Structures are given as structure tokens and as C-alpha cells.
């Protein structure tokens, strides 16, 4: 049913429909509205879950480890500093192959302290073994939670997943959103029945240490599972489309890209602004299109290379920066397009909540046409 609803609340509704048995979370702006709404659901018996109000994010994800290993579907949400505090636990969750789903209301990392949006937080965990989904709008942010659980819990995957949506820009924005019903979600998302769990009837050991004889293969196995999850994501997205008319089978999605000379590659809410800008640029006769990246891990290199094979140039919008190198997305795009020879320019944009407007996208298109890029876009020279 279509509702005018705040992004965080819509996500909380989606999480409720996923029936997590254990939630462990710690409040942090701009994630708070999600965990407040979930606390309300539990307090009113709308959600039958144990809600652990932990003392920090490190313990939030650690508690999720225990719950997930004991065989319960488990959920958390965080952002920014909270995610940074979870750094050690994130690697552990993935290594223990626990399919925990966590919402990330993307926010910048300090210092300087910033509560506003960019994607540095989740991007910085790109090597941790978590799947990473990025939402363009609140509809996608809610739907991706169902898909994330279905993929993460697939016996061939068993890896955790971030569902990333831009803090404030999406989390605190009201949009018309089509919420599924419990019945719908129950049909789409099977119960979590892990083959292995902590169980006195069948004792096993979780989280043993590995000598150099084994560690290498453990990492290989995670990498393989993450790469092979692409097929599972495709199928889960397709099935979602069959059932609810919104197809998420594509890990990268083109917008007016078929005949484009210039392609913009971006992730998250910036894609909406970019689409509007493209419509206006097209009216000026320029063939510009967008390739939206919905899944950053596993990285869909092949799909990207295929989708961009015909373009003359690529502009990547990065709401993050690997300081001393480039934006993380640009590095991936360059890798995916390496053998094509298509020039790829990077634009670090919108860090710490700096607004990205249509005119910025238009300016970037002009820059990439001139071959100018690999820059921090829109620097205020007067404060440098």
C-alpha cells in the first residue's frame, strides 16, 4: 500500500516484516528513527523480537553475532562513527559466515565531526566481506532489506549485508512508498533455518583460530561466496519483481544510457538528482546517461563493462574518498573498464553533507567532456 512515510520509518516497517528475532542497536544520528520505530513495534507487540539496548555499537554487532550463531534472524542499524566502532566486529561477522543484515544511514566520518551525509562509512568497510546494497530512494531502501535477507541467508552465500541509504537525504525525508504486507513478505522471505547453529543437541565449535595452513583458504572461500552471490542477487531481485512488480535483478541499472556518449556512474540518492539533470541536459542535445550502482559488494564489474561498452567517456561521482588515492567507486570503474580504454574521470562530491544539485551534475558533464576530472568537485577556495 502506498503511504507518505519517512525513510527511516519505512525501513523500520520493512525490517518488522522480515521478522527478526533479535535486534541489537545503539542510537546514533541519523539512524535513530529506525531503532526508535522498532522499539515502538516491540513495545506494542507488533514485532515479536528481543530488543537488546546495548551500551555501544561494538556490543550491538557482537550481540548480533551471538544471536545469529544461535540460529535467530538478527538485525542492527548504524552509521558513521558507530560503524567505525564496529570495524573489528564486521570482519568477524563475515568470517564466521553469519547472515546479519544491517541498515546504514550513510554519514560522514570525523574528524571534523559531521552528522551529515556521505558514504565514507560503509565504503570504508568494503574489504570486510559484507554485501553492500545502495538505495536511490526510500522505496528501494525498504525493498532492499527483503532482498538482503534473502540473499545473505542463502545457504550458498551465508554472508552479512549492509543496506545503505543516505542519511538525512533519505532517512529523514518523507516520500510516497509502497509498503508490502506481512503476508507478502512471508511469501518472499523464507524462515531462517541455518544448517549449523549453537545447539546442545548437536555441539559444534564456532570461531576457531586458523593456522597458516587454513587461513588462506578461509578467505578464498569468502571471496568465492561473495562473487557467486551475484547469481543469487539476480535471482532474488527477479523474483521480487515477479511478485511485487519492482525488479531488482540488475546490480547496475542504466538510465537513458543506451545511446549515451557520456555516462555518469553513481550510487545512492545522488542518482535521483542525476536523472533529473540528465533529462535537462538531453534537451540541450547532449547524449548523457546514468549507470546507477545498486550493489557495490560484490562489485558487478562484468555488468558494468557491458553496460558502458559503447560510451565515449565516464564520469564517476564518489561520495567518499580513499585519501591519497581516488574515490572508491572510480577505482572499481577504472578496473572494470581497463581493457576498453574508455576514459574514466573521478569527481569527489558532496562530502559531509554538501548539497549536490542539478547544476553540479551539469558542470561535471562539461568537465568530463573537456577531459578534466580526478578532482574534488566544488571546492570553496576561499576557505582553503
Amino acid at each position, binding site marked *: 500500500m502506498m503511504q507518505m512515510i519517512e525513510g527511516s520509518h519505512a525501513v523500520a516497517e520493512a525490517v518488522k516484516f522480515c521478522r527478526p*528475532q*533479535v535486534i*541489537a542497536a545503539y542510537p546514533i544520528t541519523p539512524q535513530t528513527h529506525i531503532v526508535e520505530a522498532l522499539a515502538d513495534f516491540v513495545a506494542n507487540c507488533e514485532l*515479536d*523480537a*528481543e530488543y*537488546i*539496548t*546495548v*551500551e*555501544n555499537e*561494538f*556490543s*550491538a554487532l*557482537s*550481540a*548480533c*553475532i*551471538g*544471536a*545469529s*550463531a*544461535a*540460529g*535467530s534472524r*538478527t538485525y542492527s542499524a548504524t552509521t558513521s562513527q558507530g560503524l567505525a566502532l564496529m570495524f*573489528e*566486529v564486521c570482519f*568477524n561477522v563475515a568470517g*564466521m559466515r553469519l547472515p546479519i543484515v544491517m541498515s546504514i544511514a550513510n554519514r560522514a566520518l570525523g574528524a571534523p565531526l559531521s552528522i551529515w551525509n556521505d558514504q565514507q562509512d560503509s565504503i570504508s568497510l568494503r574489504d570486510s566481506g559484507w554485501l553492500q546494497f545502495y538505495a536511490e530512494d526510500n522505496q528501494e531502501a525498504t525493498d532492499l532489506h527483503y532482498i538482503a535477507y534473502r540473499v545473505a541467508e542463502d545457504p550458498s552465500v551465508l554472508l552479512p549485508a549492509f543496506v545503505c541509504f543516505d542519511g538525512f537525504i533519505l532517512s529523514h525525508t518523507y516520500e510516497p512508498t509502497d509498503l508490502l504486507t506481512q503476508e507478502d513478505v512471508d511469501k518472499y522471505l523464507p524462515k531462517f533455518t541455518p544448517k549449523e547453529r*549453537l*545447539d*546442545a543437541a*548437536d*555441539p*559444534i*565449535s*564456532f*570461531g*576457531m*583460530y*586458523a*593456522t597458516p595452513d*587454513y587461513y588462506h583458504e578461509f578467505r578464498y572461500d569468502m571471496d568465492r561466496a561473495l562473487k557467486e552471490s551475484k547469481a543469487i542477487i539476480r535471482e532474488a531481485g527477479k523474483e521480487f519483481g515477479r511478485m511485487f512488480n519492482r525488479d531488482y535483478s540488475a546490480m547496475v541499472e542504466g538510465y537513458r544510457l543506451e545511446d549515451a556518449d557520456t555516462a555518469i556512474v553513481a550510487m545512492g540518492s545522488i542518482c535521483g538528482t542525476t536523472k533529473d539533470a540528465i533529462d535537462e541536459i538531453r534537451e540541450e542535445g547532449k547524449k548523457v546517461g546514468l549507470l546507477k550502482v545498486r550493489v557495490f559488494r560484490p562489485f558487478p564489474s562484468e555488468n558494468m563493462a557491458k553496460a558502458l561498452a559503447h560510451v565515449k567517456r565516464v564520469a564517476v561521482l564518489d561520495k567518499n574518498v580513499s585519501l591519497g588515492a581516488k574515490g572508491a567507486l572510480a577505482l572499481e570503474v577504472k578496473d572494470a573498464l581497463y581493457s576498453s580504454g574508455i576514459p574514466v574521470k573521478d569527481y569527489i562530491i558532496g562530502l559531509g553533507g554538501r548539497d549536490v544539485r542539478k547544476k553540479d551534475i551539469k558542470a561535471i558533464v562539461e568537465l568530463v567532456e573537456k577531459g578534466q576530472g580526478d578532482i574534488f568537485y566544488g571546492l570553496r577556495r576561499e576557505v582553503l
Partner: protein
Amino acid sequence: MADTVCELFDCGHRACGGCGAALAARLVTQAAGADTIVVSSTGCMEVFSTPYPETAWKVPWIHSLFENASAVASGIEAALKKQGRKEKVVIMAGDGATFDIGMICISGAFERGHDFTYICYDNEAYMNTGIQRSGATPYDASTTTSPPGKCSFGNKRPKKDMPQILAAHGAPYVATASIAYTADLMQKVQKAINTPGPCYVQVHAPCCTGWGFEGDQTLAVAKLAIETGLWVNYEMIEGKLVKVKKVVRKPVEEYLKTQKRFRHLFKPTRRDAEIATIQTIADRNAEKYAIDIKLKKE
């Protein structure tokens, strides 16, 4: 070995001969029984018991990180509750994981009141990383990060009073125990497990390698700790002291002399003032917990 009896903490692990912590693991799992899920912190016990693909644990067991055992246990307890399962959750963590790096997680979990039993096997230093001091290291003990030297007598501070800290959190059952008193230890573990809420048992578990004594002396050293008043076995229910092990106290010197970690107090020169300070710590323990048995004059 065909003639060994299978236990819940089984033979074949890689602990040193005479390891106090390994004995603690045997006794705790025996007392807790098969319907137990064990959560370990990173440390000696985790390492000597679970080199992949081998495990010494015949109960479900999980290790995540160094500092998060009580948070992991919180999650397990919540999941069991939601699934209607009855297994007991027991944490087995060393003193470094308990007194130092795990302190925030422990405080949070005890405040929230989860139903688990936290066993700290206290060998009074970071043994797994090579004998560095922790908040549980006793006064003047030599470790690799509290070495005696020209201007040092070893560890500068007495042990942190962890049981009292957890009693102050409202833990319904807090006890100290020693591997030298096995029946007492097992009874305390059972009491803790059968008391709803977060319970804490701190087990003195001498480390022959880290403390510097022969592996066949572990129980004797543990016993001397009690007999000198440097370790007190007691029980607290709802924050009230209900039971204390009383002793005819021996001078602390008898305990100190058994271990190389205190050797610098006797050689090359005897440090009477330092030994007297340690005696004062034992005297204070004796007074605080009223452990002294007064013998009638013969």
C-alpha cells in the same frame, strides 16, 4: 588415547602440562553439564582448545573476539529466549579479557541483566601474548611489561576488585573460587548457573609458565594463595557476603617464594619493605572478609 574418558572439555588440547586454566575448563564444564553453550574470549584457553579443525569442546562453543564475550552471550541468551530453548550460557574468559579490554561489554551486559554465568579464569596476566601485566596482576609481580629493574619492584598496583564491581552492578550471585578447591568451585558454578540473571565466578587459575613454577605444583601454589590470604574464596548473594573460606593464615612469603614472578623480592637482596607491603594486602583481605581461624593456645 583409548583409555581416556571423554569429558565435555576433552583431552588432546594443547595447554601446558599443569595449566590451571585447562583444569578450570574441565571443572566448569563438568559442573555446568551438557546443556550449556560456552562463549570464549580470545586468549590462552581459546587458542589451546580450538586450533581449526580440532576442538576440545564437547558442548556448543563460540569464540568471536577478545573483548566481546559478554555481548555475544547477551545475543545468544536473547535468541534462546525467543526460540524457547533452555540451554545455559556460560562465558569463559581470561582476566585480561575481563578486567581490562572487555570491561565495557561486561558492564553493559550485567546492567541489562541477561541470564548467563561469567567465569573469569584468572591467571593474573596476559599469558597468551607472553605474560604482560593486566588489571588482575598482583602487586610487585614481574611480567614482561612490569619487569623489576633498578627503579621498579614489578607491577605497581594491586589487583582490581572485579567481583565487587560486578556486585555493584546488581549481579545476583558473585563468587570467587580456586582450582585447588574443586568441589567448592563446581558448587559455585552450579549455583551461578541456576541463579537467574548475570552471575560472576572468578576462578584463581595459576599459570606455571607465566608465574614460573613446575607444572606439578599448580594445585599447591593455588592452595597457598588461599592459605596466605592473598586470594579469598567467598560468595555474595544479592551483594551480601554469605560465605567465606576461613584459614589458619601463613605468611605471604610462603606463597611468593614458590614463583619466579616474585623472585626479585628475595634475590639478589631480600626486599623486606615490599614483602611487608604484600603482607599488608593479605592482612587487609583477612580483616575485610574475616578469614582468620583463631587457634586456641596449646
